[in-house]
């Protein structure tokens, strides 16, 4: 599976995704500069965390109108997969590739901490190795991760089962205390109707090695590979 990791001015999780994909998953991966429009040979494009264009104006607002993001429309239409984490999720929302918006954390402070996520939709290429109700542990690191969508959009997300992850307690219960940023209904990650574009605030690349404190992020990458590797080595958990 060929991965591309997009680099905007101000991106900082690019190297981390690159490292996990190449050194942990042993998959081919290349950096994609933000001015690129040609994504032809890639299977999955990663929009990593960071402060693209300083997040001046609004988080992800400038990057959401960059050449590489404009090219994502065609890429997705051709069946390409897009994973946006942290700033990448903000960019996908700003670009209109996912509905809703990410606003300033309710506590008005940056939050870097470990969170529990309960899996709601295990029927996407990113989560098909997981099961609904499964609890994952992954860190967050952001100042603007409070998800909001208008009532109609929220209803549609729920009706179409597009909410993939919610912040939860260790036992999987979705509580106010387990919501680190004030997100609407504890939403931590959503997917498009086709299931091919996933946006999430947590950092799977920071939870992909035992040395880094956990490997739940790796389950997502393994799901992805299982959805494309045809030799049958992938086993649904």
């Amino acid at each position, binding site marked *: 599976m060929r991965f591309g990791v997009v680099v905007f*001015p*101000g991106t*900082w*999780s690019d*190297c*981390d995704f690159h*490292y*996990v994909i190449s*050194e942990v998953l042993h998959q081919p991966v290349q950096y994609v500069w933000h001015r690129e429009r040609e994504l032809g040979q890639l299977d999955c494009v990663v929009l990593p*965390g*960071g*402060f693209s*264009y*300083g*997040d*001046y104006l609004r988080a992800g607002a400038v990057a959401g109108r960059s050449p590489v993001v404009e090219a994502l429309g065609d890429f997705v239409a051709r069946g390409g997969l897009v994973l946006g984490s942290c700033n990448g999720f903000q960019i996908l929302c700003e670009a209109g590739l996912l509905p809703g918006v990410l606003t300033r954390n309710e506590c008005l*402070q*940056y*939050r*870097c*901490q470990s969170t529990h996520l309960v899996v709601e939709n295990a029927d996407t290429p990113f989560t098909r190795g997981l099961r609904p109700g499964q609890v994952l542990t992954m*860190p967050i*690191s952001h*100042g603007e991760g409070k998800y909001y969508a208008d009532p109609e959009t929220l209803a549609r997300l729920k009706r179409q089962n597009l909410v993939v992850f919610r912040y939860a307690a260790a036992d999987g219960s979705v509580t106010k205390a387990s919501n680190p940023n004030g997100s609407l209904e504890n939403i931590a990650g959503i997917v498009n109707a086709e299931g091919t574009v996933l946006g999430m605030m947590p*950092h799977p*690349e*920071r939870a992909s*090695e035992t*040395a*880094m404190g956990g490997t739940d992020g790796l389950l997502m990458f393994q799901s992805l590979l299982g959805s494309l590797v045809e030799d049958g080595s992938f086993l649904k958990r």
Partner: protein
Amino acid sequence: MTGAEPKVTLDLALDAGLTAEEYDRILTRLGREPTYPELGLFSALWSEHCAYKHSRVFLARLPQSGPHVLQGPGENAGAIDIGDGWAVVFKIESHNHPSFIEPFQGAATGVGGILRDIFTMGARPIALLDSLRFGDPDAPKTRHLVNGVVSGISWYGNCFGCPTVGGEIAFAPEYAGNPLVNVMCVGLVRADQIFRARADGPGNPVFYVGNKTGRDGIHGATMASATFDEHAEERRPTVQVGDPFTEKLLLEACLEVMRTGAVVGIQDMGAAGLACCTSEMPARSATGMDVELSRVPQREEGMTPYEILLSESQERMLLVAARGREADVRRVFAKWELDAVEIGRVTAEGQLTARLNGEVVAHVPVDLLAEAPKYQRPTAEPPGLAELRAFDPLTLPEPGDYGAALVELLASPTIASKEWAFRQYDQQVGINTLVLPGSDAAVLRVKGTSRALAVSTDGNARQVLLDPRQGAAMAVCEAARNVSCSGGEPRGVTDCLNFGSPERPEILWQFAEAVEGIALACRALDVPVVGGNVSFYNETSGQAILPTPIIGVVGVLDDASRRATQWFQAPGHRVALLGPPHVSLGGSEYLWTRHRRLAGRLAPLDLEVERRVQRAVRAAVSAGLATATHDCSEGGVAVALAEGCVTGRELIGCMAALPADARADVTLFGEGPSRVLVAVEPERVREFEALMAESAIPWRWIGTTGGDRLVVTVGTKAIVDVDVSRLEGAWRHGFERHVA
């Protein structure tokens, strides 16, 4: 300052912070009166902040070399070889004065400045640590300052993308008018690809790269070289304004252009801005520089030569390129959408020549600018110190309830959890952080190798006040001990020396004694000082801060998987106390928290014992014998035990017994050097005992982990018996409730 430039006179020179003798020296050497921009150059470069004129004679005492040292003091940062072809570049620096005037931007640009010091050497920053000091935690101004400083660090470090992995925060009334913001940065670079701040090769082009120049921060260096009074707020315009996004672009552009081979030398435009770079770089290379100021990218109109030379606008570098490689420099900076403008050339004449539209506005020998006068001013022991030391803490009453006294100590904002601050900092970007903030030292892996780095900053100013020499030596020992507890072998030291005005003999005595103490400890532990910073004039209206040397230590773990953390891992583990029995309530956290007294004598320090204890701890960790290791510092052995119980993921109790060889408050809360708790699995006890016997250090078993209470028996009496959840609650909220 716009319009016509004033005529330079002795009065103007005195206003600019120079002395009459210094002004005379300039007149003699130039053979004429300096121009106004030239006076600005001397004012900034001969300031204490840039020139260390009061401290250099003392700093020469520090050991600065060793087999692993690749770069000692005198560059933007020091560098140490860590093996496998890698080097670690690190330095600590203060941003105290700006942070008092404008805490958010002051702290933010403190982070920005130290990051540039690291990546100007060619290293990618991988870790930040902040040592912060504030006034009384209950004063309303303190809350404002803590919030401003923490959010400034968070804003700059997070946006830039370097994790904040450690540091400490402490409180004392003496910092009310002068909070301390000391930031340490650690970077990684291939050992053979370190860049230096040199201007070699006459004829080579000089590039200005990065952010544009504005009027912000003019006189920052001179501000940091004077004490404050009630008009401090008027100095707000001297505080720089940071832009972490531009800094991130500057990082990537600098590292990329360095890889092209086009870079001869490069220096951060920090204190004293362009003036500093255009004189220090050629001075190091025995060359000169000829620059055209009108070519400097500016974001304000009508800036004078004086302002362009002395602006401390952030996120800028001066780069000397190899002649013929100009296009490479321009291409890389254009890619990152940053200015890269050729503003002049390296010359052979040893002069800094600055022009405005061709007309010479400054023409000064670079060695004169770079070689400020050195002073050795008088020192004198502060009056009243002997009396302060003579105080006997045993004249104070014992606590009625030792459990309550322990809970109170854990809730003291200096000891309590700093999670409120650290959760505002990205701690993991770069995916290297193996041990997150909250243990004795942070541990970061070095990708592509089996190694890891352990880093810690420490400083206990109360101990330094009572005995500057031993107190400063103990700060080195503690920072190194924290690194050793994590399993790392200390390799190098960086120090940030925060003191009052060196023009007062008692302050300079504290400084001289402290430097001597650092030198003694570094020699005994065999760790060189490869860089650092002196911050004098931390006084407001005549009130000096506590003498505060902050010591940063970087150590190396050969096997990253053999590391230890401070919290107990499981019930049933035996707990040993390594180190000498000597402790004292003099200068202790207990004496301050409970009795508001800062007095008494320190427990003795034996540097040979310290060295052996650290070696023994490292041996236990690398042999996999230690399931937890924790330095005994503020709050003594009782607080160290409680921290072992409550700071991990699970709460684990402990039963401990201590000998009744002193009054119980001394035994429990007394502080002394060279003491470490080690937890050992029961099946490894024999091996551990054999290792301790070889180590030739004093040690004893004092307890066993387990249960849900911390019970400490002194002699035959269980005088502490507290539920660990009560200890945890005190520790978890003690800091936050003062500052949130």
